[in-house]
């Protein structure tokens, strides 16, 4: 029984992914059916995410399968949920479930037991990092849908087209994913406090986590409302200057 429990989370991730994928199947009443399926997938994702997070936090779940299952559920949790106006099978939204599905299946395929004292810290960071990465991946998938929508054109000028504001949905989900990432950082802080009485271990893992969250927030804000290439050029110049500066040892305080 104890061996089966960690496998439950990948199973939940697979179940939710299949529910989301089922929205692509033609139905008699696609609006209602797809909405309910997508809501079920997202609900299952949140249930698995919270169960996994609680199990990892209490030390009950220590296997790789549980960790990877939690990751898959996190991906489901931020899946597009606002497809209320799906007048046709929502293939784009359903495609976002492929990643959690793959992650859930890998939880059954790969076996890795994490034990020992240093492994506690590794598991802690890995869990937080996995949840964060899942959220960011889902946000990227959602953003890709938005871009694909922008390129769409009306097929027939005589037929009026009502473009679904999928790009706005993508932005909404990207925002939620970034907030989920910051939320997982708050959980990491609380776990650190419980373990060592400090807000952070001040380790490279902590630095990278916060840095990646800042980068994700930055990406979201830069592409929030794109009016011209002006800001993108500035961003590219910033990144190039920073990269060249680091390479040539510029005194950013980065090179000792």
């Amino acid at each position, binding site marked *: 029984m104890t061996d089966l429990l960690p496998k439950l989370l990948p199973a939940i991730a697979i179940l939710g992914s299949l529910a989301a994928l089922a929205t692509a199947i033609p139905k008699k009443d696609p609006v209602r059916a797809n909405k309910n399926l997508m809501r079920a997938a997202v609900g299952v994702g949140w249930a698995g995410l919270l169960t996994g997070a609680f199990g990892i936090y209490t030390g009950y779940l220590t296997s790789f399968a549980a960790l990877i299952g939690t990751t898959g559920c996190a991906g489901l949790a931020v899946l597009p949920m606002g497809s*209320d106006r799906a007048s046709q099978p929502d293939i784009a939204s359903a495609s976002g479930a492929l990643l959690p599905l793959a992650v859930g299946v890998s939880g059954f395929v790969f076996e890795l037991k994490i034990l020992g*004292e*240093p492994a*506690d*810290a590794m598991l802690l*960071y890995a869990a937080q990092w996995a949840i964060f990465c899942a959220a960011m991946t889902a946000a990227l998938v959602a953003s890709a849908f*938005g871009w694909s929508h*922008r390129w769409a*054109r*009306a097929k027939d*000028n005589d037929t*009026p087209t*009502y*473009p*679904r*504001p*999928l*790009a*706005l*949905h*993508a*932005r909404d989900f990207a925002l939620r994913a970034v907030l989920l990432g910051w*939320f997982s*950082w*708050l959980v990491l*802080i609380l776990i650190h*406090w*419980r*373990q*060592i*009485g*400090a*807000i*952070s*271990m*001040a*380790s*490279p893992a902590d*630095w990278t986590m*916060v*840095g*990646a969250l*800042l*980068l994700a*927030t*930055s*990406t*979201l*804000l*830069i592409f929030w*409302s794109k*009016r*011209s290439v002006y*800001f993108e050029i500035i961003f590219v110049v910033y*990144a190039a200057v920073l990269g060249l500066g*680091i390479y040539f040892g510029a005194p*950013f*305080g*980065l090179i*000792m």
Partner: protein
Amino acid sequence: MARRGRRRRSRSTRNATRDASVNPQLQRIWSHAIQAQNIGILFGVAGLTLVLTPLLRRPDDASSALVAGSWWTSAFYAPDVLGLAAALVGLALVMMLGMLWVRVEFAGRALKKESDPTEAPAADFTLARAPIPATIHDLVESSRANTLTWVGAACMVAGVGLLAGDWFYSQQKLPPAYVAIANGEVIQNYSVPLAKAPLTANLPRRVRLKDLQLGAEPTASIQIFRVGDAPDAPPSIVRTLPAGTGVNFDGLRITFSGVRASDDKLRAIFSSEAPKSVPAVASISNKFRVSLDGPEYKLLDVRKNYLSVMGPAAEIESSELGKFWVFERTSHTSVSPDLGHPIQLDRVESEMAGIFTLTTVQPFWPISLGGTLFVLGFALLIIFPERIVRTNKDDGGIRIWSFHEAGKLADHIVDETMVDDTVDQTSIKHAIADEEPDAVEAPEATKSESSDPESNGDSP
């Protein structure tokens, strides 16, 4: 009614006075600065700095000063870079609050159903339709700006800001460090693994691990002595710590983090050639006997490979023989040399040591307050989402703004306008981001194109 009019006039006078008092150039710079993209760039540079610095400053021999864990999970000390990143994040947060304030002011103006679109920031979604259905007017009424929405957004920004501030501040001080303490061992200092060389930090008190219990739920019993106390004086603090708990003393917190076999903490197992003797296990500074009536010995030192060639060895002291070394190799010879003592060294093995984390005591209130603000803001934004809908009679434009429900709201607007719709009278323009005007052609929308704020606006 007259009172409301006076209040409105008073408010507009105040605003006009305030606007006049601000330098127009500064106002222009500020309005350009508080764009989402600029804030994003600041966050991006700070994030790049944090991600790249540990990789660039990775020590050549990271394991030399590590007690437990790995370089990846051990403390990393670089206050100069942290200061730079903290300054960037702080500036970005201030600008983000400014951006929120602009949105609050706009939402206040959005209470009016009809408004001048040129004064509005770029809409997230625009739909040109004439006449505007009555359901949309109802939506405008029902989607009035809710104060709690802005309270939620401000709470989230403030919560993250407080947590990030505490995170940056706490890492400017002495970083946490792992310490391995063997059974019976006393420590007075510990080593902090820094990038160039480990830093030795003195403890304000002596800490002794009195007892270490292994098993499924390990516990460590520690004693903390005052500085200057005699070695046989009673400890000032005695605690038995389950794993994950700690105790504070003199501004430091020591937490029992786990148990592991220590590479540098060794113990020796002795036996004796004398009759009626039993094997004995001893750690450094322990006293032991190998027979009930035999002399007492004290273990002074243990080496895995004495002088790199002699193999395992232990230094022992007794009142009769003084200090002497015992070698495992000699002990295992078939004909033992006459060394003047009966003790044999059976083997040397790694000792189980308690792993403790030493940190400076930090207040909990920033975490508590920051976390509460963040979660409260999150909940408020879920319960009271930002939904601003405005209409314009002249061009039949319906515009929406929302931070996190723009897609859902846009879907709803399109659904509402499709009811009893004669399609040739409608045109839709999807106006997020850099949507080209020709994405969906709009015969009537060309009329409103010139007054469309999104064509030149940059605000989110």
